[in-house]
């Protein structure tokens, strides 16, 4: 079935089409939500709400192409995630201290990491830092946009990003040390 046909069927309210649509995008969207949220359960809950809004919003959605549709879905999921984060007060309002110098570059270490490992490392970062990190590094928003979205100052956004980078670096070093120890044994 073509993607546009699938969308039309979902718009009509066909449960079969919606199931097919869900199966096609569930994992991708779950990983997207899980990157922002603390637990799997929270991510599942937000995923359900997000799909509910997607199916409801299909009535007003104008189809351009599949990539644009996925982008639209991710935007809905992101809003749901941020709403959940705000609800749980997980955004840390840190003072506007920019400590970019703390970050230790380890280019080689990151390149060696697989996608799975990077994902797991990101999920280990506290939610407040992780949110800014995801928005800035993965989604490509700038600090002004992030500040507006999270209703924080640009300085706070920069500070949290810096801390997130630092934490990630430490996690990578720790992971490498463990890995090297295993190899040594």
């Amino acid at each position, binding site marked *: 079935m073509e993607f546009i046909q699938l969308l039309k069927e979902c718009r009509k309210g066909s449960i079969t089409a919606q199931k097919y649509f869900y199966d096609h995008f569930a994992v991708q969207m779950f990983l997207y939500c899980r990157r922002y949220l603390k637990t799997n359960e929270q991510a599942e809950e937000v995923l359900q709400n997000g799909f509910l809004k997607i199916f409801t919003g299909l009535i007003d959605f104008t189809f351009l192409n599949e990539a644009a549709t996925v982008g639209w879905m991710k935007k809905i999921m992101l809003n749901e995630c941020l709403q959940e984060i705000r609800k749980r007060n997980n955004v840390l309002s840190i003072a506007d201290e920019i400590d970019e110098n703390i970050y230790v*570059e380890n280019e080689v270490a990151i390149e060696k990491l697989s996608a799975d490992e990077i994902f797991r490392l990101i999920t280990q970062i506290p939610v407040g830092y992780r949110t800014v990190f995801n928005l800035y590094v993965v989604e490509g928003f700038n600090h002004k946009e992030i500040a507006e979205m999270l209703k924080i100052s640009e300085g706070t956004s920069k500070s949290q990003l810096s801390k997130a980078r630092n934490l990630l670096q430490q996690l990578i070093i720790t992971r490498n040390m463990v890995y090297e120890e295993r190899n040594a044994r």
Partner: protein
Amino acid sequence: MKKEMHDNIIQGKINSLQEIPAGISFNAAKSWQQLEKQLQPKQKKNIIWFYAAAILIAAMLISGLIYYNNNSSTSIKKETVLKGHSSQTGNTKSVVLKNDKAKKQSKKASIFIPHQKPISIDKTIIVEDKIKLDSVVIIETALQNNSIAINQPTEAKPLVEKTTTKNVPAKSKFKIVHLNELNTPQPQIITLSKKAGLEEIMYKTGSSNPETETRNNIKLFQLQRNQNDAPVSITDNP
């Protein structure tokens, strides 16, 4: 610059991730079941609203039809006052009908009387809660039977209109006469003239009405008797 390179590496690897990493669990089927529950009630709610709207529209249509029918067949219900009224002709009575919807006017109406032929009335008179009709007998009979029905719906006009009733004249019946009867001679007309200023009575001797004949004979006899010896001349006028 190096940060940007790192960011690009991370971004590329994260976006290329298609499978759930180890240590993270996701039950898609269970999640779909919960989502399906949330999706289905909405559809049911929509159907319920659809049926509710349909029922409402049907009820409105039915009530509208009932209201229309009530208006179209105006029944004279409440106060019916019959008043004896001596009109100019002296032989007619007027019937005053008070109705709650009397201000409405009908252009064409018909009065239905059971066991009789319906009489068509061109216009019904309604003048400030009063309906005056000349054909008293018909209206009286109709009121006794409670069966006045005005078929045509009325137009709400505030102006008072005076209308007239028109009875369809009954067809005159001709007497059936045998061909031989036409050849009989012309009937003799007897004029009774009364000396003391009595009116003349034209009497057709060939009249077949025995009642009239008998009545006239009795009158003639009484005249003769009352006048005692007064002379009565009977002349034959051929």
